[in-house]
């Protein structure tokens, strides 16, 4: 079984597609969250190894969620995702404590795996 992963995104269609893609590439999707607040609670409850985190969430900004998650003592690896271009966010991805960024349209198990094993 591959690494456990939590998908955080407010668009159900993306969560469904991401689940299919990641599961077919060997990941174990153990949960989904639609906003920042539930992302934090699900993260504590499920203790995933990886969090796939959308930048734009309806309540808390994705980068702030990332900072909170990575401030925990034993925290999962966070991978930011968005349908926008990563260049739009400047240095925010690295400063927020995320391990990397995957554009939504290019999401695959392979890309996530690459970021996890530097």
């Amino acid at each position, binding site marked *: 079984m591959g690494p456990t992963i939590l998908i955080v995104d407010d668009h159900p269609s993306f969560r*469904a597609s991401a689940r299919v*893609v990641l599961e*077919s590439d060997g990941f174990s999707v153990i949960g989904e969250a639609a906003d920042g607040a539930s992302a934090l609670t699900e993260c504590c409850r499920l203790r995933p190894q990886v969090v796939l985190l959308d930048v734009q969430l309806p309540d808390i900004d994705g980068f702030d969620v990332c900072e909170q998650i990575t401030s925990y003592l034993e925290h999962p690896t966070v991978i930011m995702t968005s*349908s926008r271009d990563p260049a739009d966010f400047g240095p925010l991805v690295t400063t927020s404590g995320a391990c990397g960024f995957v554009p*939504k349209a290019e*999401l695959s198990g392979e890309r996530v795996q690459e970021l996890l094993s530097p």
Partner: protein
Amino acid sequence: MSGLRRALGLVAIEGVVVGLVALAIILSSDHVEARALQGVLAVFIGWSWIGAGLLAWWRRPDNRFGVLMTAVGFAFFLGTLNAANARWLFTVGVLVSSVYFAVFVHMLVAYPDGRITSGRLRRVVGVGYVIAILGPLPSLLFATPERLDCDDCPESVIFIRDSGTLYTIFDVLTSLIAVVLVGYVVFVMLARFRDAPQTRRRAMAPVVWSGAGLLIVLAGSLLSMAVGGPSSISDATMLLGLALFALVPYGFVFGILRSRVLQAGAVTEFLHRIGDGPDPSDLRDLLSTALGDRSLQVVYWLDRPGKWVDAAGHPAVLPPDDDPARAVTRVDREGRAVGALIHDRSLTDDPELVGSVAAAAGLSIENERLQAQLRARVEELRASRARIVAAGTAERRRLERNLHDGAQQRLVALSLTLRVAQARLHEDPDAAEAMIAGAQEELTLALAELRELARGIHPAVLSDRGLEPALAALAGRSPVPVEVARTPEERLPPAVEAAAYFVVAEALTNVVKYAGASQARISISRSNGHAVVEVTDDGIGGADPTRGSGLRGLADRVSALDGMLELRSPEGAGTVLRASIPV
């Protein structure tokens, strides 16, 4: 006015008759010395007061000051009854001989409005009347004519017994009360004079100074009598007092004349200086100087949108009619309001002055009004430009958001699905086929969203085919039945067509959201060089024009084309949104 004039004429005739009667009483008196001189002096004083009082009464019928002055004259004649030879007439005459002085104090306290608003001052005046009656009483009750150095005087009808002690005690007591009272009134008058604005002081000065002088002389005379000073002093002060008393009405007439002369001077000076074409702050200063009111404000009336503004074009508020401190004098030109002066309420005592200055300033105020109108318009344009920019930014944000949340998300999902389907094409063709079918549906939805979004930015059919098909399409998509009653046959300029289209689109959105209407009607016609867009519904009415940013944005859009947007929405009687745009 003729009724007032007739009444004042009657009072004047009564004054003449009463004066002649008083003269006859004094001339036939057997206990008055220098009868001819005394008689002439008495008539002169009484008539002076009545005459000046009538003048004041006529000039300011609403001000009771004139009535009080006239009353002083009549009360003075009443006092001459003490020259009568008959015992009971003499007694009454002595009793009321000082009443004129109480009326005089009443008048001074009531100056310049003729009304006493403070309860304490009203009590002071009341005590004045009581003291005026009580003052001579001891001489009637406890003194023989000999004790009063008037051997020829008739004996009082209420004489009890001759008592030097009782007479002195009562006399000193009433005199002291009178002195305190008079001192207090002088204090009140001077304090009031000090607090009055410049213009009011000019008119007040003669009355205040002669009144205060007279009161001080009277107080000195009473004090000298009370402490039993030599009779030469009290006689001299009494004579001085009488002379001053005769002068007060002339002081008042002088005050009126002087204020007229000053007023004419102020208006002339004002006219002279205003010819130099003042700028707005100069106009205010000139008016302020001419009226002697430093707090003066000038405001201007704008017909469209019907509001008061200051010289800078900022909205201004007029004080209410019952404001105790400020009053408003409107300035009209050719029957139209052009502006108003907001000034100290005391200036309403002299409406002719304010009126003539306002009339003289009419042309300048009209010019300033046009300037203020221009500034208000610039202010409005600046605000609407800022709103248009803000609305543009908000609109771009909304578009980005819609693209991101809508079509873009669907395309992302589509891309992922296709990738998985491709990977499974060989090992699990059935699953791959189902995925491709799902992707097809997703693509249809994404296209629909893109179409909707593009139409919101600018409907292509409007630019390609004109208003009629564009409005028909809007009507066709509306859940409420819409009739397109009228559209212009020829094309309008693109900006006008777009504004008209968005007015209709916003109106229909509101009809669906709020109006509870069963149908709506669109009409666009050309009239008087304007395109007139009207959207009518049969809904509940009562729409609030300030609700939401939609209408505000439309109003800005329409006014950017020099047009006007109006909303008529009476409760329960449907709504009409009407835009009229110059073509």
